[in-house]
C-alpha cells in the first residue's frame, strides 16, 4: 500500500508487527520531522523549479526522513542542507607525486584526501616482490615502508584533514603507518580523522585481495576496532563495501544482502570481542555500486537503510540512533562501461549518478567514460565530475527529500529488494547456526558467495550473448565505433625510483631492531588475547616493510588460497 507506507514500514516480512517502543525514533511523526527540518540550516539557493515554481521540501507522508527506519533518508532536509560529497578516487605514481596532488587539492578548498594504493601494496607485498614487476605505482601509490607514508603526507596537517584509504588485506599495517606519521608530526592518535576500507569479508567473496585466512583476518579487524574505539574516536575503521561484489557479477539483491550480512558479521565479531555496539556502530559506513537499472538501484539504496536500521535495533539491540543510520558512498558501475563506443558511457554514468542521488547517497564517485580500457585520462575524469555536478545543480532533484518516496513502483521495489535480501540472510543464518558471522565463514568455505556471483554473472553474459538483453554499442547499435583511443600509459620510471628507494631505506635502518620487533609480533599473533596494533605501530617505526610484516604474520596465520569453484 504505497499510500500508507508507514504500515509497510512497520510490518515484518512474516507479517508480524514491529514493536517501535521508542516514539522518538518512530517514522510517523510529522511534527518531529517539521521541527528537525526547521532547525536545519539550508543551502542558500532558491528551492523552486527552473520555471520558478516553488516546491516543498517533502511530499507524501510517513516514514519521514530522518526517522526510523530511515527508508526516506537520514536527514530531515535531505540535500537541501548539504549536497552529497563529490569524492573522486584517483592516484598513481610515487608518494611524492601524490603528495603534490594532495596539497593542490587542499589549496583548492578540499577537506578530504582519498588514497589509492598500487597492486603490490594492496596485496601486502613489497615493490621488489616477484609479481610486483610492471605493477609498481600503476593503479595507486606504492607504499613499502613508513618512509613512503611520510612522503605521502609531508607538509599536510593531519589534525585537520580527513583521509580515506582504500586498502583491505594489509589495512592494519597502513593504519599503523598513518598513526606513526601523525606521531612524528606531533599529532595525537585521537586527532586523526579518516576511513580505511578494511572490509576483508568481501575480499574472499569478490575482490580477492586477501592475505590471511578469514578467521585470523577477523581477529586483526577486531583488534583495529578495539584500538580505534579506545584511542581514535575520529577514525572509521571499516567501510563495508558491496561495490566489488557487484563488479564481480552479483545482481542488485545479492550486492545488498552480502554487503549488509558482512556488516552484521563485523558487528557480531566486535560484540563477541566485548565492544559495546553503540561505541563502534556509529563509525561504520558503507559503499555501494550504482548500476544502470534505475529503479532497482533506487529501491536497493532505500532498502539498505531500512534493513540496517531494523537489524541494528531489533537483532543487535543498538540504542544510539547513530548506530541505526546507514551512511554510504556510491560509485557508478565500472563493469557497465563498454570499450565499444566508449563516449556513450557518459550517458550511462549520468543515469547511474542520478540513481545514487535519488537513493540518498552521502558521497559519489562518477566513473570516467574511458575506464573500460585503462585508468582514466584527465579529460575523461573531468567530464565524470561535471556529470555529477549537473545532477546536483541542474536537475532539481536536490530540492525535495526522497522525491520518489511513495511512488507505487519505487515502494514495491524497495520492499522486493528487502524481501530478497532477507531470504539470503535466512540462508546465512541457517548455515551459520543462527550467526551471520559463522554463516559468512561457512559461505566463504563452501563456495556459496563466489558460486552465486559467478552464476549471476554467467546468466547476464548469456542473455547479452543471445541478444535477450541489449547493451547499446555491444550487441545492438554497433555502428559508429571509430576505434580511436587515447589511453593513459604509465612509464617505468616510477618502478625504478621505488625499487631504489626501498633499497636505500633497507640499508639505512637498524635491521636488528626490525628483527626484534617482527619476532615480538609473531609471538603476539599466536596469542589472540593480545591486541596487535601497538606492536604493529612499533614495527613500522623501525622501517620494517609492509611485505616483511605480512610475511611474519603469515608464518603464524597462514596464507589464504582460494578453493576453485566454477
Amino acid at each position: 500500500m504505497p499510500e500508507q507506507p508507514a504500515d509497510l514500514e512497520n510490518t515484518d516480512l512474516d507479517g508480524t508487527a514491529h514493536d517501535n517502543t521508542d516514539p522518538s525514533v518512530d517514522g510517523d511523526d510529522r511534527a518531529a520531522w517539521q521541527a528537525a527540518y526547521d532547525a536545519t540550516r539550508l543551502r542558500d539557493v532558491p528551492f523552486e523549479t527552473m520555471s520558478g515554481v516553488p516546491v516543498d521540501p517533502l511530499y507524501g507522508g510517513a516514514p519521514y526522513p530522518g526517522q526510523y527506519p530511515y527508508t526516506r533518508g537520514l536527514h530531515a532536509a535531505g540535500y537541501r542542507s548539504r549536497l552529497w560529497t563529490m569524492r573522486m578516487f584517483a592516484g598513481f605514481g610515487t608518494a611524492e607525486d601524490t603528495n603534490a596532488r594532495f596539497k593542490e587539492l587542499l589549496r583548492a578548498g578540499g577537506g578530504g584526501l582519498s588514497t589509492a594504493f598500487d597492486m603490490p601494496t594492496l596485496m601486502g607485498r613489497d615493490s621488489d616482490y616477484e609479481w610486483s614487476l610492471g605493477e609498481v605505482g600503476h593503479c595507486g601509490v606504492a607504499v613499502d615502508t613508513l618512509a613512503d607514508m611520510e612522503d605521502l603526507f609531508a607538509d599536510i596537517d593531519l589534525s585537520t584533514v580527513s583521509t580515506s584509504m582504500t586498502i583491505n588485506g594489509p589495512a592494519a599495517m597502513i593504519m599503523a603507518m598513518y598513526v606513526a606519521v601523525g606521531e612524528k608530526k606531533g599529532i595525537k592518535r585521537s586527532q586523526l580523522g579518516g576511513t580505511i576500507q578494511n572490509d576483508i569479508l568481501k575480499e574472499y567473496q569478490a575482490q580477492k585481495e586477501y592475505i590471511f585466512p578469514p578467521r585470523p583476518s577477523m581477529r586483526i579487524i577486531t583488534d583495529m576496532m578495539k584500538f580505534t574505539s579506545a584511542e581514535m574516536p575520529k577514525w572509521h575503521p571499516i567501510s563495508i563495501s558491496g561495490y566489488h561484489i557487484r563488479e564481480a557479477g552479483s545482481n542488485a539483491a545479492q550486492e545488498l544482502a552480502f554487503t549488509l550480512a558482512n556488516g552484521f558479521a563485523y558487528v557480531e565479531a566486535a560484540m563477541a570481542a566485548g565492544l559495546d555496539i553503540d561505541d563502534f556502530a556509529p563509525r561504520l559506513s558503507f559503499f555501494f555500486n550504482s548500476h544502470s537499472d534505475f529503479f532497482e538501484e533506487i529501491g536497493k539504496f532505500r532498502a539498505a537503510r531500512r534493513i540496517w536500521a531494523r537489524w541494528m535495533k531489533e537483532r543487535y539491540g543498538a540504542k544510539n540512533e547513530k548506530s541505526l543510520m546507514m551512511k554510504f558512498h556510491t560509485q557508478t558501475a565500472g563493469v557497465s562501461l563498454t570499450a565499444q563506443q566508449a563516449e556513450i558511457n557518459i550517458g550511462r554514468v549520468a543515469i547511474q549518478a542520478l540513481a545514487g542521488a535519488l537513493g540518498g547517497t552521502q558521497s559519489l564517485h562518477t566513473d570516467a567514460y574511458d575506464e573500460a580500457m585503462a585508468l582514466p585520462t584527465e579529460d575523461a575524469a573531468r567530464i565524470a565530475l561535471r556529470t555529477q555536478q549537473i545532477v546536483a545543480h541542474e536537475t532539481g532533484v536536490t530540492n525535495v527529500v526522497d522525491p520518489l518516496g511513495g511512488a507505487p513502483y519505487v515502494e514495491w521495489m524497495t520492499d522486493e529488494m528487502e524481501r530478497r535480501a532477507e531470504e539470503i540472510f535466512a540462508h546465512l543464518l541457517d548455515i551459520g547456526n543462527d550467526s551471520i558471522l559463522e554463516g559468512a565463514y561457512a559461505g566463504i568455505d563452501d563456495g556459496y558467495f563466489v558460486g552465486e556471483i559467478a552464476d549471476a554473472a554467467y546468466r547476464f553474459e548469456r542473455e547479452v550473448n543471445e541478444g535477450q538483453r541489449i547493451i547499446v554499442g555491444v550487441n545492438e547499435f554497433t555502428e559508429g565505433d571509430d576505434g580511436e583511443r587515447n589511453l593513459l600509459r604509465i612509464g617505468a620510471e616510477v618502478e625504478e625510483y621505488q625499487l631504489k628507494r626501498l633499497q636505500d631505506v633497507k640499508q639505512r635502518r637498524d635491521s636488528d631492531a626490525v628483527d626484534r620487533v617482527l619476532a615480538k609480533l609473531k609471538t603476539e599473533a599466536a596469542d589472540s588475547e593480545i591486541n596487535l596494533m601497538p606492536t604493529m605501530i612499533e614495527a613500522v617505526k623501525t622501517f620494517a616493510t609492509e611485505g616483511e610484516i605480512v610475511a611474519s604474520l603469515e608464518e603464524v596465520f597462514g596464507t589464504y588460497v582460494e578453493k576453485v569453484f566454477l
Partner: protein
Amino acid sequence: MAQEQQLRVVLAKLGFDGHDRGIKIVARILRDAGMEVIYLGLRQSYKNVVNAVEQEDADAVGLSMHNASHMTLGPKMVDALAEAGLEVPVIVGGIVPEEDVQPLMDKGVAVILGPGASAEEVAQAVRDSVAAMHATQ
C-alpha cells in the same frame, strides 16, 4: 570428423590480478561448447601452468588479464611453455588496448579476445588456434 576429439584447455590468472569474473564465464562457455576445462584459479605462477599443461595433456592455455600487465605476463608464459617443450597456443582474454595486440602476437600469443567477444567467437578462437598450432608442426 577430426574435430570430435574433446579439447582440453587450461585456464589461469597469473600474478596479482584478482578480476576473475571474465575467466569464470569463459570457463563455462568452453564447457558448454564441449571442451574440458581445467581452471587453476588465481595467483598462478608460470610453473603451475606449465605443470598443469603437462599433467593434463592440454591443447591450449587461456589467460585472463585486467591489470595492464599483459605485456609482461603474456610473453613470459609463451616462453615458459616453449622452454618446457610444450607446443600449445596461448590465448589472452581481458583488457588489451588495440595497440598492444600486434606486439603481443609478435611475441607468440596466438589469439587476443577483447571485451564483447561472443561465446561463439571465444570457442572458435580456441579451436582455430589449436588447429593452427597443429598445422605448423
